[in-house]
């Protein structure tokens, strides 16, 4: 039976909602400082070229231009998120000897207005010597391919291998073996707030303050320290409200570095804001890749072996791409029992803008291929698509050798619930309508430590004041996903008070203990555990005093709830929270009550302490004449443990479905010779609210022992099954098969014609 909570589990509007909807909430992009300058970057028009010379004299002479820097003016630090392996920290402040993608910054300048800065960019003269370039991962690995980074011959940036069981023997014994090859397109995270930073360097103290639209103040502090060759402690990063990240704002980017360098040079604050074109052409995106998958099953649908190959187009730099590559291998197995598994991933450098860990962190391509292939296999074996998933679904306690263990796990109940609800919801289908399913599981934060942090993965500091109000200090990042509300709810629940009693102090490296930031759906579990720990320390002090004052037997348990501390079994016997706080502070020599909590996962495998999971279904109607697919309805059955904020969880599922459907229907980044061809919203198609189907969400509650109050991931998981469920629905409706995402009408029409031709050929053969 689930526990009854006072705060948790109650639909709660975001604590910062009123500020956001009234426009009062400050984002970095809104900020100005006295005497501030405007920075701009000059970017390479070539995908690969030597920098022969840069002449800044004409630009320098333009009135209003205050500083110009090129690669030779930078401290020469190399940076990147893979600090644990320094050779993978492969980015430099500004290109020094050569450029590696169209958009690689070669110079930065600061001027008194944006207009002057733009004009000055045109006056910088750069002489390049174009070099042969490579854009495709298969071409990049050839012996005679141009080398993007000299230290990486054949452009092999990272390789990943996972293997357990005797894969070849299992395939040999399988009743049914199927091999498929896929090509998946890159896609952009398209956060509404573009990358932007404001930097202010204090020449007197040698300290730097940077306000930035980032997913992780700590990552940015580390990246800046590496790039600028400064001590981390001399850099203060402040994260105001952030208008979306989706994985694209984990890395340290040239906006913050160039703003910092220009501020150091001028002694004035400098702000750098990317425009939308820069956002598309020179910031991180979901990696495009070639994939191959082989599955072996018994006649009854039991999976006996699985093999996946992923060759990704990494682009010019590593960022989190190497981690994403590994996770594609991990998520390829979830949520199924796979007795024998082999995964190979290779990430190549190419002369394109680099790809990284966009929402779903490797799970999106993995699920597209595994869930569409499983559907084809089920069809061939004459098994219902939900039944084959139920047959192979993992159970609580399942361990993938050396990789991960599921503790709380309701994937089977989710699948069974889906079967029941889908029958009720869609009792009869019309012609050319179909339902597609895809199951999923996703981490609640990552255990891997590529950033090489010596700090706890998450920390929180709670201070209780004399009037009972609470100051909660945390570096955890709310980037629009609602973590501020979740943080306040967890703190309030643990202390037995309300969220209105809590004031949040957020995202400032000078005033908060470290948290690694918002990625991999980590904040609820990891920061939630840290907050709960900090709050519990304070609560225990109050309970200690209450026990003394009540004089009760030590065997009686006391609880903190509804602004009281009382005997759990005799609620009438208790004391006021407010009175206890006063007594506790007096007893503490007048010092407010404090607790510093922290969380780092230990002995929880390689991936994550916990996994959210479930199954998603989409009903579609296909127009056979035009290839247009109408996504009519979405049904999600979801196990995310104890839901902390039902309103927030719903928002996260809806957002993930929106992004996943975009990946399946329309979002792609075609490139030609390294140039992104659709770098604006006119050509980069994302679904609008009115394009979205209705989404029904059913929670199957579980209690996750590693999560705060039993909570786990609820943010990203549902992006991964959406596109494959969509493709499976089209297959169910008209028999068209897809081995790539982005099911545009022309692609659907072609696949329908192919399916019809195949059907005709089969009937002819039968006759």
């Amino acid at each position, binding site marked *: 039976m689930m526990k009854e909570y006072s705060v948790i589990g109650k639909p709660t509007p975001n604590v910062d909602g009123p500020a956001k909807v009234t426009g009062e909430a400050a984002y970095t992009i809104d900020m100005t400082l006295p005497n501030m300058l405007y920075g701009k970057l000059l970017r390479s028009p070539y995908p690969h070229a030597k920098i022969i010379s840069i002449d800044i004299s004409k630009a320098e002479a333009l009135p209003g231009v205050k500083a110009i820097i090129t690669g030779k003016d930078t401290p020469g630090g190399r940076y990147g998120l893979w600090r644990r*392996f320094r*050779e*993978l920290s492969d980015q430099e402040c500004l290109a020094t000897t050569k450029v590696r993608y169209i958009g690689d910054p070669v110079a930065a300048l600061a001027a008194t207005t944006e207009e002057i800065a733009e004009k000055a960019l045109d006056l910088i003269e750069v002489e390049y010597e174009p070099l042969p370039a490579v854009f495709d991962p*298969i071409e990049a*690995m*050839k*012996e005679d391919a141009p080398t993007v980074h000299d*230290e*990486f*011959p*054949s452009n*092999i*940036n*990272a*390789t*990943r*291998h996972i*293997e357990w069981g005797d894969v*070849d023997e299992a395939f040999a014994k399988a009743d049914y073996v199927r*091999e498929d090859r896929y090509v998946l397109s890159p896609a952009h995270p398209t956060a509404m707030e573009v990358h932007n930073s404001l930097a202010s360097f204090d020449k007197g103290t040698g300290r730097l303050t940077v306000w930035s639209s980032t997913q992780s103040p700590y990552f940015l502090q580390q990246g800046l320290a590496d790039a600028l060759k400064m001590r981390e402690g001399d850099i203060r990063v402040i994260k105001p409200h952030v208008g979306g990240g989706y994985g694209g704002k984990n890395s340290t980017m040239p906006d913050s570095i160039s703003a910092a360098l220009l501020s150091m040079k001028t002694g004035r604050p400098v702000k750098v804001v990317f425009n939308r074109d820069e956002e598309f052409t020179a910031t991180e995106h979901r990696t495009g890749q070639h994939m*191959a998958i*082989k599955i072996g099953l018994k006649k009854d649908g039991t999976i006996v072996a699985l*093999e996946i*190959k*992923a*060759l990704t187009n990494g682009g010019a730099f590593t960022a989190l791409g190497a981690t994403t590559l590994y996770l594609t291998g991990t998520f390829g197995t979830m949520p199924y029992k796979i007795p024998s598994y*082999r995964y*190979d*991933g*290779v990430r190549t450098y190419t002369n394109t803008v680099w790809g990284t860990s966009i929402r779903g962190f490797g799970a999106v391509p993995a699920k597209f291929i595994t869930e569409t292939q499983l559907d084809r296999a089920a069809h061939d074996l004459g098994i219902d698509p939900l039944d084959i998933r139920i047959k192979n679904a993992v159970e609580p306690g399942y361990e993938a050798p050396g990789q991960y263990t599921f503790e709380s796990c309701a994937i089977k109940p989710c699948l069974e619930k889906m079967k029941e609800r889908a029958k009720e919801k869609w009792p009869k289908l019309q012609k050319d309508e179909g339902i597609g399913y895809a199951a999923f599981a996703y981490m609640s934060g990552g255990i891997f430590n590529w950033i090489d942090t010596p700090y706890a993965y998450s920390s929180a500091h709670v201070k209780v004041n004399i009037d009972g109000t609470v100051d909660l200090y945390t570096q955890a990042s709310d980037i629009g996903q609602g973590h501020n509300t979740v943080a306040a709810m967890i703190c309030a629940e643990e202390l037995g008070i309300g969220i209105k009693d809590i004031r949040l102090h957020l995202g400032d490296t000078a005033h908060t203990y470290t948290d690694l930031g918002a990625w991999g759906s980590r904040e609820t579990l990891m920061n939630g555990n840290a907050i709960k720990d900090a709050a519990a320390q304070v609560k225990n002090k109050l309970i200690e005093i209450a026990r003394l004052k009540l004089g009760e037997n030590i065997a009686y348990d006391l609880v903190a709830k509804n602004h009281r501390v009382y005997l759990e079994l005799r609620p009438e016997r208790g004391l006021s929270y407010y009175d206890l706080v006063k007594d506790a502070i007096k007893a503490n020599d007048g010092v407010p009550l404090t607790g510093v909590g922290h969380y780092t996962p230990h002995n929880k495998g390689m991936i994550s302490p916990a996994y959210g999971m479930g199954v998603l279904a989409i009903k579609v109607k296909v127009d056979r004449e035009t290839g247009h697919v109408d996504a009519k309805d979405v049904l999600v059955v979801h196990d995310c443990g104890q839901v902390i904020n039902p309103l927030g969880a719903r928002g996260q599922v809806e957002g993930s479905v929106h992004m996943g459907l975009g990946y399946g229907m329309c979002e792609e980044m075609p490139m030609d010779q390294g140039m992104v061809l659709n770098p604006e919203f006119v050509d980069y198609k994302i679904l609008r609210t009115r394009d979205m189907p209705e989404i029904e969400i059913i929670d199957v509650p579980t209690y996750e022992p590693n999560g705060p109050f039993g909570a786990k991931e609820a943010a990203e998981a549902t992006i991964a099954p959406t596109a494959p469920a969509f493709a499976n629905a089209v297959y169910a409706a008209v028999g068209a098969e897809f081995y790539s995402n982005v099911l545009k009408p022309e692609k659907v029409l072609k696949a329908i014609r192919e399916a019809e031709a195949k059907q005709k050929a089969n009937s002819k053969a039968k006759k």
Partner: protein
Amino acid sequence: MAYYRCPMCRKICPDHLDLARHYLGQTDKKHKDWLKTQGLSYAKLITDQITEFGNKGYQALADVLKKEAPEVKEI
């Protein structure tokens, strides 16, 4: 139980295939250069491993390591 040591670093593995997996997972120059001395191409091995199902790339290196990485008697 037998163990085999990487010719370029102190890593030990229970069999030569596992050692080949370790070897091709390294990104440093030292490991890559040694392959050339054995007449092997790092890119070719990785290409074979990623473009075909099975362990073709690892197996080719494992066959060489059988000669070059003898059994470790003491760990």
